[in-house]
């Protein structure tokens, strides 16, 4: 009774709302593992910077943040942070913070930052619902898509509580912008186009991945034009979006003039030009007889293409338009970064994706996804073209870079939901279908692909009223005449199997989230033999030590991975950090780490380094330590100083990377090796020292340090901090000074009594 007539529609609306709210709640809840298991803590690396920037924004206000010169990173260069970050994330949390303050909720900014990503994942689920509902008339598709989006691990990996990164809000903005774009193309209204531009602007302010939108929307428009589907709706929405969106994006200092100068944005500009020409051609066609028009069109196409292409080449060669960035090249050639830009290749999330990762992150969606894309082909309306393009591009990018799995996830959820809803709508109808459904059949035949979509929608909605009581009006998209499933056995079997799959999917998602994506990586958890959980908190122990025992301006040198954490947790200036804007500076640190002490010490003194921090996992078997990252430091340093640092020197003649007795002298004399293994042998009986990560026995004679001295070693030896010595007071070399302290006598400098010493060096003053 509640599902019939006008009441039925209202009830369905209410139910849909409740279901959406429940999905959002589930999305938030499944992201809270880390908060419950550990505490409300910011995760990993980049979130620490975002958190620090947010604190700065909240403390100093918006304009000082906008003009922020950060003198506590990249010492001594500093970083124009306000102009080199995407402020969307910080401003969003700042706004929420002030709003809650205004409503007299004194919430700590940290908790807002920790919980921002889960909150936005609820919104993402909602946006996915909207986007999918535009694609399919079945309401179940939208709800399924929202549900998938809410719990799929591919998205959870970047949005658990504490993962306070740009992606946290960017995925919502991505999906929502696409929804608005589809809406704008469908309706052809300036308002929707302007809304698209508005959210596009928000997206630009939030994540560098906005380039994906910048290229996908023009591609969509281009494909539509090529398919002969140019329409005033497309013209209005595209031009509105491009003009307003480009202006909006240029307001972000980090983006600035890129939209008109960088190759990455040229496609959007080109399509903007093209769509003007096409519109003009359409106009002319209305005025001219077709034969003349053909000639004119051909001439115009040639001329315009030649002029535009020539102009583009000329501008690129003359340098007005920036050539493609290195990151862009590495998207097409996976080997490019490894050869040319080691700094990009050294990041694990820039590696190509392994096959199991797709199944791990998307589970059964990955095989529903092609089915959904196929269904888009069947009713190839403008918005379905978009889905197809998006699916193809995102699949490719996700295969190239692990990190881009994130952009693939929304489309997988949408496509899979469309496929699944099709099955469910067919099989979950309790009533036995009547043999003929005369009124629905003609409209389902896909005769309305190109231009008559508005009229079909109206007729379909008129028909809907009649059909609501009997059938969900979803099967319009099938080309075959509407027939149902008659056998209850096949209905129940299929429905049962799908339910089982869905339940398995939920189980898988929960399991992955709980085990793989909820570790803060600042705090490590391990299991004791009796099964109880043991927390390894060396990172925070060390950062707290720095915070409490060193001068406020003590500069800490470490590999760039830990820069943001040192800045955020220890509040000490660092030389390099995860914002890898200056490759040379990183190479300098790499050189200091990989060279002999006599070479590194002047570098450290020149950069006013007070402490050096290394991560060492040998005692605990923690494999993400600096010795394992060491070759990247060598490679990056070699990129700048190929004569002084050579990767080959760190390998044994047989090409092995060893740290034991057979390690090369270069390896054993490098500062990183020395700092990692200094005094390590003292933990073991003589000759028994073992590195548990590399699984090898260490030399009995441990390394000796002269230019730095040990200041701190954490409980499990994961973090070791060394203090850099100043110049010797008596002007000796530090090695000599240490030797003198041990009782070694200094050799007289060739002024002895012996003969045949050659010419003396005389002092002139």
């Amino acid at each position, binding site marked *: 009774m509640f599902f019939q007539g006008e009441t039925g529609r209202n009830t369905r609306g209410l139910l849909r709302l409740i279901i959406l709210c429940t999905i959002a709640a589930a999305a938030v809840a499944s992201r809270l593992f880390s908060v419950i298991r550990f505490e409300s803590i910011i995760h990993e690396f980049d979130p620490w910077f975002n958190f620090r920037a947010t604190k700065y924004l909240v403390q100093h206000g918006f*304009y000082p943040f906008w*003009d922020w*010169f950060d003198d506590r990173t990249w010492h001594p260069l500093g970083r124009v942070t306000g102009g080199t970050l995407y402020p969307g994330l910080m401003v969003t949390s700042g706004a929420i913070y002030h709003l809650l303050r205004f409503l007299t909720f004194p919430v700590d900014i940290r908790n807002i930052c920790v919980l921002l990503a889960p909150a936005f994942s609820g919104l993402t689920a909602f946006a996915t619902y909207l986007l999918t509902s535009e694609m399919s008339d079945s309401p179940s598709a939208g709800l399924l898509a929202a549900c998938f989006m809410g719990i799929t691990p591919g998205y959870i990996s970047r949005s658990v509580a504490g993962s306070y990164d740009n992606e946290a809000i960017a995925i919502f903005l991505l999906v929502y912008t696409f929804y608005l774009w589809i809406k704008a193309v469908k309706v052809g209204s300036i308002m929707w186009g302007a809304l698209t531009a508005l959210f596009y602007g928000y997206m630009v302010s939030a994540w560098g991945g906005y380039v994906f939108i910048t290229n996908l929307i023009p591609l969509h428009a281009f494909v539509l034009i090529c398919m002969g589907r140019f329409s005033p709706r497309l013209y209005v929405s595209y031009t509105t979006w491009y003009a307003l969106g480009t202006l909006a994006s240029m307001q972000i200092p980090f983006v600035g003039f890129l939209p008109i100068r960088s190759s990455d944005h040229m496609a959007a500009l080109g399509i903007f030009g093209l769509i003007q020409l096409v519109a003009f051609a359409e106009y002319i066609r209305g005025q001219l007889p077709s034969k003349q028009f053909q000639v004119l069109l051909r001439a115009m196409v040639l001329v315009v293409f030649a002029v535009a292409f020539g102009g583009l080449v000329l501008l690129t060669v003359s340098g007005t338009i920036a050539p493609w960035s290195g990151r862009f090249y590495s998207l097409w050639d996976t080997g490019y970064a490894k050869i040319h830009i080691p700094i990009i290749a050294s990041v694990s999330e820039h590696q190509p994706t392994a096959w199991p990762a797709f199944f791990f992150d998307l589970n059964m969606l990955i095989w529903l996804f092609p089915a959904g894309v196929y269904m888009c082909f069947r009713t190839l309306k403008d918005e379905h073209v978009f889905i197809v393009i998006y699916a193809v591009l995102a699949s490719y990018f996700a295969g190239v870079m692990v990190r881009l799995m994130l952009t693939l996830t929304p489309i997988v959820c949408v496509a899979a939901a469309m496929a699944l809803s099709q099955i469910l709508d067919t099989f979950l109808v309790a009533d036995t279908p009547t043999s003929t459904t005369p009124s629905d059949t003609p409209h389902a035949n896909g005769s309305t692909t190109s231009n008559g979509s508005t009229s079909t929608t109206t007729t379909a909605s008129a028909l809907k009223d009649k059909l609501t009581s009997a059938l969900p009006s979803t099967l319009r998209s099938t080309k075959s005449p509407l027939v149902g499933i008659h056998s209850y056995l096949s209905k129940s079997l299929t429905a049962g199997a799908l339910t089982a799959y869905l339940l398995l999917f939920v189980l898988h998602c929960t399991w992955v989230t709980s085990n793989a994506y909820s570790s803060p990586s600042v705090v490590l958890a391990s299991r004791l033999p009796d099964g109880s959980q043991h927390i390894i908190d060396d990172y925070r122990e060390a950062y707290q030590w720095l915070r409490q025992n060193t001068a406020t301006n003590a500069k800490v040198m470490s590999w760039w991975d830990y820069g943001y954490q040192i800045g955020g947790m220890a509040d000490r200036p660092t030389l390099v950090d995860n914002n890898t804007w200056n490759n040379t500076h990183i190479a300098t640190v790499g050189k200091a780490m990989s060279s002999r002490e006599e070479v590194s010490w002047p570098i450290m003194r020149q950069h006013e380094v007070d402490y050096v921090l290394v991560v060492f996992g040998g005692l605990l078997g923690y494999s993400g330590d600096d010795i394992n990252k060491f070759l990247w430091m060598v490679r990056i340093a070699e990129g700048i100083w190929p004569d002084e640092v050579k990767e080959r020197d760190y390998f044994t003649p047989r090409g092995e990377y060893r740290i034991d007795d057979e390690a090369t002298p270069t390896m054993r004399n490098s500062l990183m090796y020395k700092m990692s293994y200094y005094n390590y042998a003292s933990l073991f009986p003589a000759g028994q020292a073992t590195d548990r990560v590399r699984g090898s026995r260490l030399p009995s004679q441990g390394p000796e340090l002269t230019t730095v001295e040990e200041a701190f070693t954490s409980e499990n030896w994961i973090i070791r901090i060394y203090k850099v010595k100043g110049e010797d007071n008596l002007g000796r070399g530090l090695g000599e000074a240490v030797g003198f302290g041990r009782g070694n006598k200094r050799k007289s400098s060739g002024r002895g009594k012996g003969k045949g010493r050659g010419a003396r060096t005389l002092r002139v003053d």
Partner: protein
Amino acid sequence: MRLRLFGLLLGLLGFVSALSAQGQKLLVVIEDESDKSKYSQFWSGLQDRGFQLSYRSPKDTTLSLFLHGEPAYSHLLLLPTKSKGFGPSLTPNLIVDFVNGGSNVLLALSAEQGIPSAVSSLLLELDISLPPDRNSLVVDHFNYDTQSAGEGHDVLLLPSPSTNTKKGIKNFFSVDGLIAFPHAVGQVLGNASPLLASVLKAPSTAYTYNPKDDSSEGLEDVFATGAQLNLVSAFQARNSARFTVLGSSEALEDKWFDASVSLPGKTATGQKTANKAFAHALSAWTFKELGVLRVNSVTHHLAEDTRAGITNSTAVSAAPGDVNPEIYRIKNRVHYSISLSEYAGTHWIPFTPPAGDEVQLEFSMLSPFHRLNLTPSPDQSHPNNATTYSADFVLPDQHGIFNFFLEHRRPFYTNVEEKRTVSVRQFAHDEWPRSFVISAAFPWIGGIWITVAGWVGFVALWVYSKPEAARRELKVGGAGKR
């Protein structure tokens, strides 16, 4: 800080005729108590200048240079010993620690008593080499005292060091008359160390000679000759602790303070030695009565009152009135000044570098962006005690973390190293000139307004021509939709 404290003390203890800028406690290490009387004039000279002398034998087991881990004495005077070293409480390591603790050492050597090997190895740490033979001494057949060393030629007579100073180096050791150096041990200074300076060099005709070694081999391969031999050398550590090596301890003895000497070949005989004055100068320098610099204050601030019409900056920045702000903007004009005083034995006087020298400031990030000579002017608050060195300059067009770095290291002066770190930020978003003051922007601004006007005109035209267009559209479009 410490120096300033002693500056205060100075006012209280004004009755003392002279006073070290660092402290008065002086430890004299003398092996034989009976030898003390040999140096009585030198002791009384030191005591008159306010030093508290304590005499200890190196064999004394209670002797310790440190008290609670800090140097127990401000100054140490080491007189020669016959044994191989100064014993367990004065090992080279301890003396190095003592110097690292900031205390000063005057080490007197003597060829008569021989060179202890421990002293040789200690001096090697300072890059000073002594002859390998224990008894080597410096002889000169042209500049010896005919009265006392007519045979041995081992009492050298040298003129005052004033003649061999270079431009830009202040000479604290010039005296009137000849200085006698009996049985001196020559030192050779290493080339590498910039902390070493020669106070008194041997004449070009001097060489080292071991009287115990009769073989000619020693003469063929002498340790060092001529001006490479130093009779008095000065070492000033990076913490400004001073270590002076005096080649001849006998030069401090009463016997030579006012002896009458004569150079060979000169008709005039019976010249008075200037040893007393030289000993005074040398001990005064070593024990920080001379050549001590003090930084009274370092200030830097913006040197522009108005920021050229830009008043609405919202960025974190230095206001014109702030003294020593932590942040500037690129291309700011700033004023840097440092107030320096020099200690003149009893009181602080304005510091003036010797002719040919300048006080220089570096504005540096990794490497200097500016290296400026500072201009002196009398200090406003203490015109009689201090000089203010200052400079006005425009910050480079490069943001970063910069240092106002003043490093004044000159021989015989204590080191001044003042580093003030400031951040130099970029232009804030509202510190650029507005578009309407840039003439090159006029076409663009004009373009904007023309577009605006054109649009308004178009709208007006459209509105004016509306009725006809609307009627036609109603007919066509309306029929199509229904």
